């Protein structure tokens, strides 16, 4: 009865549920027994025809009272004991060298995760199945709590100290992560998704840094334009001079601002930073109806610089940037002709998914690492040998299945349709720079 717990996706989950179900069955038994006795007495000994019948003056019974003190005590000892034993399993610090340690950080109202290779994600994290996982937690603002129902673990996330959850996932799939310590306005939207995947898929995912690298290599103004749409600035601030909820961004930078209290300031770098982090401190005259929320904690210094540069560029001399398409299309509109061949090759590497399977640091992913590849000699899986020269590399890109290096699977798709000659040449030049 009452088996509503979610699926068991960690090693400790069946143990927790076993104890849980025992408590449930004991609870149901005692509730039914005691309330059943009460109802039985109520019917059996009811007052009939409105006249009291004679009742015995029973004031107690030592034997019974000892029994119903001792029996619950014994049950409690057992339940408490197993509660402690299973809890120790749950919080045990694994000494397994294979364990995956992830740094998790709660903030109002999102979860950030950082992996040991530096990869960072927000509101999603991926772990390999059947390996001990330890998420070390802290908070940048107020209390949060990190709850993984399918793993049966939970820990408060406390500013100023580290806590952790550890679990070993046993089932691939996608699971909920909730914030369970009330943390203000969007507490109920502070969710993250946990993906448990195979070891191979995890390796590919954790080494795929393309999204971050692209962000880091963007020009500040471009980053600012991207954030303008991503963070929703566009909902209130136009780029064409029209007044929406807040002032337009067009030709804002460098002008004099008049505030609702009558004071004035020039819209310089510090003004813009302050307007993002502490918008209530300086509200432009005529715009005090709907207050802007503070972005403190949701935006880093690098991104603020990006927004400043973006605003600096909005002087009316060039058309405003359009909202970029979905992530997959990133970079499509970029002008690549200005890049040197090496830069072009690096761009291809990062944006055409090479990065997903080929590392730069010598580690073996799905495909061979690019580190020291150019000029290498080796054996293919048909027994023949190869030298990684220009011709070999070009053929590997256009028709990869024709020459698979020994020890690898023929998984790479052909790129003949997707890359031009300049792209391929760029990759070759880029690989040359990666020689040992």
């Amino acid at each position: 009865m009452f088996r509503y717990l979610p699926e068991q996706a960690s090693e400790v989950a069946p143990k927790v549920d076993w104890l849980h179900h025992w408590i449930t069955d004991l609870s149901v038994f005692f509730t039914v027994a005691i309330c059943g006795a009460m109802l039985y007495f109520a019917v059996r000994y009811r007052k009939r025809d409105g006249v009291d019948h004679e009742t015995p003056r029973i004031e107690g019974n030592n034997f019974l009272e000892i029994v119903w003190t001792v029996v619950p005590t014994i049950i409690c000892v057992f339940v408490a004991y197993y509660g402690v034993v299973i809890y120790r399993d749950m919080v045990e610090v694994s000494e397994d060298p294979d364990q995956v340690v992830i740094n998790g950080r709660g903030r109002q109202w999102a979860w950030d995760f950082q992996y040991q290779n530096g990869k960072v994600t927000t509101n999603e994290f991926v772990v390999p199945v059947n390996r001990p996982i330890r998420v070390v937690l802290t908070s940048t603002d107020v209390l949060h709590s990190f709850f993984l129902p399918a793993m049966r673990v939970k820990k408060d996330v406390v500013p100023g100290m580290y806590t952790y959850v550890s679990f070993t996932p046993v089932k691939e799939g996608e699971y909920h992560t909730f914030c369970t310590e009330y943390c203000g306005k969007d507490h109920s939207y502070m969710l993250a998704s946990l993906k448990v995947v195979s070891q191979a898929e995890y390796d590919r995912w954790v080494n795929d840094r393309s999204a971050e690298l692209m962000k880091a290599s963007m020009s500040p103004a471009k980053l600012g334009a991207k954030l303008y749409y991503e963070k929703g600035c566009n909902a209130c601030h136009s780029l064409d001079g029209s007044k929406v909820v807040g002032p337009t961004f067009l030709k804002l930078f460098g002008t004099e601002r008049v505030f609702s209290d009558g004071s004035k300031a020039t819209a310089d770098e510090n003004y813009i930073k302050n307007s993002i982090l502490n918008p209530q401190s300086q509200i432009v005259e005529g715009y005090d109806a709907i207050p802007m929320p503070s972005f403190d904690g949701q935006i880093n210094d690098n991104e603020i610089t990006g927004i400043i540069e973006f605003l600096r560029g909005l002087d009316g001399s060039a058309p405003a940037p359009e909202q970029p398409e979905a992530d997959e299309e990133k970079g499509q509109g970029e002008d690549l002709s200005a890049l040197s061949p090496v830069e072009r090759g690096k761009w291809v590497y990062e944006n055409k998914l090479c990065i997903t399977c080929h590392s730069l640091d010598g580690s073996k992913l799905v495909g061979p690492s690019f580190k020291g590849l150019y000029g290498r000699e080796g054996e293919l899986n048909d027994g023949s040998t190869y030298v990684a020269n220009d011709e070999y590399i070009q053929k590997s890109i256009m028709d990869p299945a024709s020459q698979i290096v020994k020890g690898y699977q023929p998984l790479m798709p052909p790129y003949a349709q997707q890359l031009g000659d300049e792209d391929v040449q760029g990759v070759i030049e880029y690989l040359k720079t990666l020689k040992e």
Partner: protein
Amino acid sequence: MSAHADGDDKNYLNCETTLWSWISTVDHKRIGLMYLFTITAFFIVGGLAALTFRIELFSSGAQFLTPDQYNVLFTLHGAIMIFLFIVPGIPATMGNFLLPLMIGAKDVAFPRLNLLSYYIYVVGAAMALIAIFNPFDYILSGFSAEQAFNPADTGWTFYAPYSVKSGSAVVWMTGAAFVLGFSSILTGLNFIVTVHKLRCPGMTWNRLPVFVWALYATSVIQTLATPVVGMTLVLLIMERVMGVGIFDPSMGGDPVLYEHFFWFYSHPVVYIMVLPAFGVVGEIIPVFSRKPIFGYKMVVYASVAIAAVGFLVWAHHMFTSGISDWTAIYFSVATFGVAIPTAVKVFNWVSTMYKGSISFETPMLYAMAFIFLFMVAGTTGVYLATLAVDVYYHDTYFVVAHFHYTIQGGAVIGLIAALHFWFPKISGKMYNEPVAKLAWFLVFVGFNLTFLPQFVLGMEGMPRRYFDYLPEFQPMHRLSTIGSFINGFGYTFALLNLLYAAVFGRVKAPRNPYNSLSLEWKTASPPSHHNFDEDPEVDDYPYAYGTPVEGGGHH
């Protein structure tokens, strides 16, 4: 009302009728009534707040509230229900009215202090109202629309550092809780001295009604635990106003320390709420079963044991908070120490009915409902005491359902039971029995329909204090919302029925409508200004019902 002239018909209600005679009264019965009306008003406000956010939670997705409004509403619901309604609850209303009557005294030990307690409560309540409407931010901001509705939104627990950073209403709300604490402490002291010093001849400790024992144990907790939360709330205010870093890590403080301080009070306070309800049930069941309370001494010792052990288990609210594993293990094991005396009490109540002559007037129906609801509250408490299982349940709807079974199913049902049971004594009238039973039915069905689905939500992993939720949680939320309205109608009928009987009722209550042996029924209904016409004396405990039998034991 022509009976005024008749000296025999003078009672505490009609001996003086001016408004001044009420607001300056030192009569414990009138003070009890004033508390009753005040806390009932707050019960209605807190209940309406809950019904409002239950409508919001009827469906997944944002409905008609904003997240901020929802957060304010659940904070108001919690803070009002806890600090303004159920902590004063039974002790300040029924306790004030009944304690001197039950021990044969003319009043409490310090009648003026008693009135002061009431007015301190009123000041605290006024401060809470300021926190609710928060007019100062609005005025100081030059009537900025943004500050027009900015009440406390921290939850009733005021956890740091959110409460240090959130809006200024937090200072008013915590200040209110601080002031209300003094009211609680003074009432507790007053009751302790009253029980020690004002028992009538023959009223030995072994003859005290179980309700008096429960009040006594409650008063000890009030006096010892409340100062801690008072200090904690002052520290929180100092941190906000003066920037003293105690709980906020950005100023060198420790938020977990706040949790310890807070629960050191707020766990024992659960027993402040529920022990008096145990006492009420312990009075009602013997009377309607015509049987002595089974194991009087065990029932009394269990109350005292719960009060004592209740001080030693506070960190079971904090198993996931970052306390050390050994601390968690100690608090888990200690918590089971409260489960045992509580279980003993339930066994004793049920055995009292054995071979009784049981009648089912409304107070008895509430007492039986209480036993079922408290079984659910107690057994679900076992899940939460068990370390490995609580990790899963902490801060989910399972906890919400559990403490509503404890506090509403326990303390509120206990208060409503007490109101019906002693209504003839308080008002001198009889209420309409069929309407009272219908209201009981609605309360019982509505309550279970509200909170049983919340256990299921908790099992499914639904966190508490969520403005919005995933679609898979919707069916149980819908049942819960429907139940909450049935529950609300039930309370409305019950209270209106009593109010109608008190004001317009024509059926005069006899001295002792239930043939109870307890002292308060030996005086007139309603009692005279000085309680007893002649000084009472007792020679047995008040549960000597039935015919003495061989092997019946001794109390």
